[in-house]
């Protein structure tokens, strides 16, 4: 078994109102100096050893992310 991490982020040109709301809340909570926040998704997949990188990319591109509005990265990590 291997652990695979897929990170999905809104594309830079796509408005991220959730990230903006978090950024706007920080000064109100007394945290100064954070100039921008982008909010995305983080997936941890436990996969069998015979699942290859092409398959993982396909999972990310066709399902976990919507490439119209989101960028994605896939990486294998130590479990």
């Amino acid at each position: 078994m291997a652990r695979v991490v897929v990170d999905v982020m809104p594309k830079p040109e796509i408005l991220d109102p959730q990230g903006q709301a978090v950024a706007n809340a920080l000064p109100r909570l007394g945290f100064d100096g954070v100039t921008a926040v982008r909010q995305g998704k983080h997936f941890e997949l436990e996969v069998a050893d015979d699942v290859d990188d092409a398959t993982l990319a396909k999972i990310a591109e066709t399902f976990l992310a919507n490439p119209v509005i989101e960028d994605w990265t896939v990486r294998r990590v130590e479990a």
Partner: protein
Amino acid sequence: MRVGVITFPGTLDDVDAQRAVRHADGEAVPLWHGDHDLKGVDAVIVPGGFSYGDYLRCGAIARFAPVMQEVVEAANKGMPVLGICNGFQILAEAHLLPGALTRNEKLHFVCRDQWLRVENNTTAWTTRYDRNAEILIPLKSGEGSYQADEDTLKELEDEHRIVFRYVGDNPNGSRNDIAGITNARGNVVGLMPHPEHAIDALTGPTDDGLGMFLSLLDTVVKA
């Protein structure tokens, strides 16, 4: 005219969509998300709601439902398909329509009666309207902000594929005030507001939405 109305786990507006079909003298045929079967219908409505709880992204899981594989195949052969609200999100995720629907610009769920302008009255679902007619129907969505890249927006504008545009204040930050679009062929239409909730003045703000279902009747009769 037999019109299929799909029910997914979490669909809300299938009952009103079926009622709208009957108001247009059609037969509403319930379709189940788990069936590879369109039951021989002439057209399909993908109604609003929160299919699969909106998990992952709105429409992302519904897109892979067995019935949607049949809808995609039929739509590509020319069958009229209408996606309302969550249905629009599902059609975008299924790549039957370009772009994507994202969280409303100001994060608030918007629920109000909304004026729209009908800018394309040549689709399978809009022939009963005058071009540039303004209609008032309910809008109720939290993720209705239409987004697409510049090339796609230009293509939609140049090919007159923006079917409905918001009139007055843009309720959700949609690019180019887009409320609804069509595919190149004009058989697939998706919109965020709800024509099925405005088919008679007793239960809706107007009966302005009924024209979409009557338009379909004309389309099916001519076919």
